[in-house]
């Protein structure tokens, strides 16, 4: 892959080398898109100078969900149930709002068994980087169609897929997600920038990443293959994530073709115009674009929609600075007097 291991001496602002962010050796197939995404998660966290212990990983069941063990070994992680990653994350992240949640799921995990939790976490806007490693196929059970497989796709075991697919980005927008992106594992630079933007987003960030399954669904004509992706990728823009402390240097870009979105933490996502104007803060435009992409068979990639100021679930509760899971016993047990009052009320 195009991601050579960095030399040991390179450290980030925390003094950590990139290998402080890596995970256990992978057991995924050689060439799996998921491995490339895992590498980009590592790079993004390393480059953003995030303390690995500040990150909490969540995953469901499937090849994608196994991959949560293959990055960020120094982070807590919970590999839970099929399709139920979002609820686990939602409960856990209330424990300490300063934690950064990264969820990894697959297309079966998200679009089949977990469609409900996926849509509900989106509408509640729980701060979570929600990565769907989308390959259209069940790998661990050796090659069945998932809900994102296109109609007419032929697989060795199952013959021809008779059903229309679920579009994860479309579903996310319909569910009022505040951050919806699509990318392609074969475009690691874009994947990495999107992960960075997602990490700094104060809400659920859905990243639908086409991640080819080299073993069961990498046929040239398949919508989830490397060759089809490379041939059909239609980036909406070129994007760059600029962390809060850095100045934006726009000399690389042509004047008038730049759009910036400032995130809640002060970081900025810079969008460089490619073939057409695209405003990722416009929900109507986003929906239109997705519709057009389906009609024209484009693999549109980039940040499809973002609302950086959408209130998140924590805003619905008045939670203090001290993480809930660090509150001492005297803060969580009411005093005797209050119980006396309650007893009186029922007397």
């Amino acid at each position, binding site marked *: 892959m195009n991601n050579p291991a960095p030399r040991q001496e390179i450290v980030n602002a925390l003094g950590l080398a990139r290998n402080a962010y890596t995970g256990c050796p992978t057991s995924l197939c050689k060439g799996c898109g998921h491995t490339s995404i895992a590498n980009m998660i590592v790079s993004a966290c390393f480059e953003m100078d995030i303390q690995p212990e500040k990150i909490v990983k969540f995953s469901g069941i499937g090849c994608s969900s196994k991959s949560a063990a293959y990055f960020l070994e120094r982070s807590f992680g919970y590999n839970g149930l099929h399709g139920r990653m979002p609820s686990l994350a939602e*409960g856990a992240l209330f424990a300490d709002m300063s934690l950064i949640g990264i969820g990894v799921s697959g297309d079966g995990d998200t679009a089949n068994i977990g469609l409900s939790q996926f849509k509900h976490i989106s509408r509640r806007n729980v701060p979570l980087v929600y990565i769907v490693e989308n390959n259209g196929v069940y790998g661990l059970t050796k090659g069945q169609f998932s809900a994102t497989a296109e109609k007419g796709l032929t697989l060795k075991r199952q013959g021809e897929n008779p059903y229309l697919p679920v579009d994860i980005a479309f579903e996310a927008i319909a569910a009022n997600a505040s951050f919806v992106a699509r990318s392609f594992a074969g475009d690691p630079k874009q994947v990495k920038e999107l992960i960075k933007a997602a990490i700094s987003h104060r809400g659920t960030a859905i990243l639908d990443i086409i991640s080819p399954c080299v073993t069961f669904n990498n046929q040239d004509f398949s919508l989830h293959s490397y060759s089809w992706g490379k041939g059909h990728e239609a980036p909406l823009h070129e994007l760059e994530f600029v962390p809060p402390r850095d100045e934006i240097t726009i000399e690389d870009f042509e004047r008038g073709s730049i759009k910036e979105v400032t995130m809640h933490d002060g970081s900025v996502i810079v969008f460089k115009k490619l073939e057409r104007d695209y405003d990722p803060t416009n929900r109507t435009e986003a929906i239109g674009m997705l519709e057009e992409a389906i009609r024209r068979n484009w693999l549109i990639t980039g940040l499809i929609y973002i609302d950086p100021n959408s209130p998140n679930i924590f805003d619905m509760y008045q939670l203090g600075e001290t993480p809930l899971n660090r509150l001492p016993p005297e803060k969580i047990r009411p005093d005797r007097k209050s*119980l006396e009052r309650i007893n009186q009320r029922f007397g």
Partner: protein
Amino acid sequence: MKEYLKKINDFTITFGTVNGSGSATANNTILRSIFKMGIPVSARNIFPSNIQGMPTWYSLRVSKDGYMGRVEKDDILVAMNPESVNKDIKNLNTQGVLLYNENMELNGLRTDIIAFSMPVDDLVKSCGFSSNLNIYLSNMVYVGVLAYLISLDIEMLEESLFQHFGGKKSAIVPNLAVINTSFNWAEQNITKNSRYQLKPMDSTRSKIMVDGNTSAALGALYGGLQFAAWYPITPATSLAEALNEYIPSIRTDLETGNTTCVVVQAEDEIAAIGMVVGAGWAGLRAMTSTSGPGMCLMSEFLGLAYFTEVPLVVWDVQRVGPSTGMPTHTSQGDLTLSYFLSHGDKDFVIMLPSNINECFEFGWKALDIAEELQTPVIILSDLELGMNVWMADPFNYPDKDIQRGKVLWEEDLEQFARKMKQEWGRYLDVDGDGIPHRTIPGNMHTSAPYFTRGTSHDTYAQYSEDPEDWKVNLKRLKKKFLVAKSNVPKPESSKPNSTQAMIAYGSTDMPAVEAIDILNSKKVSLDYMRIRAIPFCEEIKTFIECHERIFVVENNRDGQMKQILCVEYPEHANKFVNISQSDGMSLSANWIVNNILKIISGGGKNE
């Protein structure tokens, strides 16, 4: 008609009304007023799974002896529902009293009862309030008439109304006016020849009246609950709603105004338990509340929580299953479900509260047990206990500090390594009790994070399919359950006195203790044990060993506790006799007595 002895403070009144007609205010007012007169009283709502228009009953029992079990027959019937009146009348005892709305057609009247018709509409109209209130005020007519007939203290009614409406005058005034008007009407128009009379007592002083679901919620809030996720389901809904009701007043930090307990209404029961597992794993005291159908949906996650050793509490307020069953009726049908829940080898701690005070006590204790053992705790309440208001002693403040179990923060990890002379591992059993030490997210020590997985793992939380690793881990989990035997509430039992005994649990304790007394009066002596938790502790075994025949009384078809007792004590299996049924109603002492007597006299098994 022959003159019957007066029955003072010992009778049953059933109110037959239409659901959605606002009779709850009238019924609660009567209940509270009798309570305020110092007389032990209990009441059950028998209601349909419906919003408006179907028959509903409120069955109130006055018992000077303090019995709270259901009684099958009524002494007084207040009939406000034309649809059910003719059937309801059949359930009156001889010499029973019928109060009915005069606009109803009765199919011939029984001659062995005393009947009074009430001019409900006229009495309400005569008070002159806005006619859109009339449907609600109608119910106050029977409050007034009944008050006269059974000598219910009008002042207490006034106090109860004040309490019910939180002192809101605009609501109290019209209701009270109708009560007084109706009372006066009764005084002038009907003879007070009812044999059922109230007489003030002093048996409710310092007692409280509250429902089981509210008690459970309060118990949890005093137990330091920090996170609850739930999905609406009868009869558990009011438990979560009570959390929301009390959090602002008792779980808000006075200095900062911040909340210390979060409640999320999930999209379904699977998400609810998922959030609770996540929260419990991340170090929050977490729980959910549900009923049978929700328990089924939560089964997979509870298996994960057991295997990944996540503390959490599940309240199952039982209703009648299988399937949608009878959602608004009570049963004890989820015991074997809870005992065998989820696939593979596993054990669940199950707590069985019998009364209001135990709903509160188990509410906080379960959170301690869950964190001490790092495992899910299931509490089985039921509609009977959860949704009805019961008389009880005041809630006791927890007598034990909050127990967080073996949690290691940054400094603890340093100490652990020094003391144990080895690196911490998530599933290392260093204390020999099967309970490992855990770290929780937010712990910034570099050795704190670990990867939690529902797949097999070794003691350092690494993936492993080594048969030995699997076996060792499952054996250690079993060891925790042995520790649980001494952590969970012990049974309550009478002193051994007989070779025969009765076992009951949960809300069935109410009719069971009454049945024991009735049997005693018939010279049948039974010892009694009330099981309060699973796993069974030594005391339960000893009790069983001490008796030759044991009647296991419960509110389900198959005798689920009996089944579990047979599994746990196969050597005593032939001692257990199943006294159980499920028809949506709680058991009555009479039914228990009759079935036990039938068996004792050699009449075979219960129906």
